[in-house]
């Protein structure tokens, strides 16, 4: 899905991308792709775009699956603000709070087991924690607020 960066003026780095969606899987897919397409290709390398797409997809799918228990009509808001050295994201929903009021551990699972015992899930938070910075969760006024940053332009 890589797009050749067209010749265009310097990126508007502080432009906020804001999107509201429902918690249906098809809508999650479309919303995350829409955010990624709105990001300036001059600003982000292809690998940074696909990493951000992965992180957003993991977070929002988790909200749909767990905070809204698979209900397709839950309210979710994604805000993405590109900055010179990174991308700041905030994702808000009105579903159930995280268990224990905190982020899941996202620990490695034991893979040295017979094939039949291999885990088929639990990889989402591992990826999210690995690929983000300053990941922060807060339950406030009946809403879940998740914030993170992703560094860009690094080597």
């Amino acid at each position, binding site marked *: 899905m890589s797009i050749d960066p067209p010749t265009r003026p310097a990126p508007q780095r502080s432009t906020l991308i804001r999107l509201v969606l429902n918690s249906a899987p098809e809508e999650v897919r479309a919303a995350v792709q829409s955010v990624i397409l709105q990001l300036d290709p001059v600003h982000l390398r292809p690998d940074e775009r*696909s*990493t951000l797409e992965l992180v957003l*997809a993991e977070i929002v799918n988790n909200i*749909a699956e767990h905070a809204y228990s698979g209900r397709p009509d839950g309210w979710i808001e994604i805000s993405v603000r590109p900055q010179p050295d990174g991308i700041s994201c905030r994702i808000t929903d009105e579903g159930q709070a995280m268990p224990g009021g905190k982020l899941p551990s996202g620990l490695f699972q034991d893979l040295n087991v017979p094939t*039949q015992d291999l885990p088929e899930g639990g990889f989402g938070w591992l990826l999210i924690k690995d690929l983000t910075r300053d990941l922060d969760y807060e339950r406030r006024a009946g809403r879940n607020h998740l914030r993170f940053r992703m560094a860009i332009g690094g080597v």
Partner: protein
Amino acid sequence: MPLRQQKMGGALVLAVTDDRIDAVSSIRFKDEVAAAARGGPSQVVLDLSRVEFIDSSGLGAIVAVMKVLSPEQQLDLANLAPIVDKVFRLTRMDSVFAIYPDVQTAIRAHVD
């Protein structure tokens, strides 16, 4: 999710023609790959060259496929795009699957 099937050498090569294996498509993906691989030869190679995006549900679906194969069958992966490869490395699932740069290499590496 259409799957292109091909016999190559002694192996069954299943090429995924969709560009995503994600929360929307993972269940269908799992069912279709499992149905195609069942009763097949000892090596099944999943050609992911067309796949540009995979998330944790897609990864889980590939693990699930491996579980429904017979004990004599092996599921190998080939042609991973950088982001797909990254998902396998970060979750350490690259230690569970044999991952090859292309289908030919996967088939040559297989010992019955």
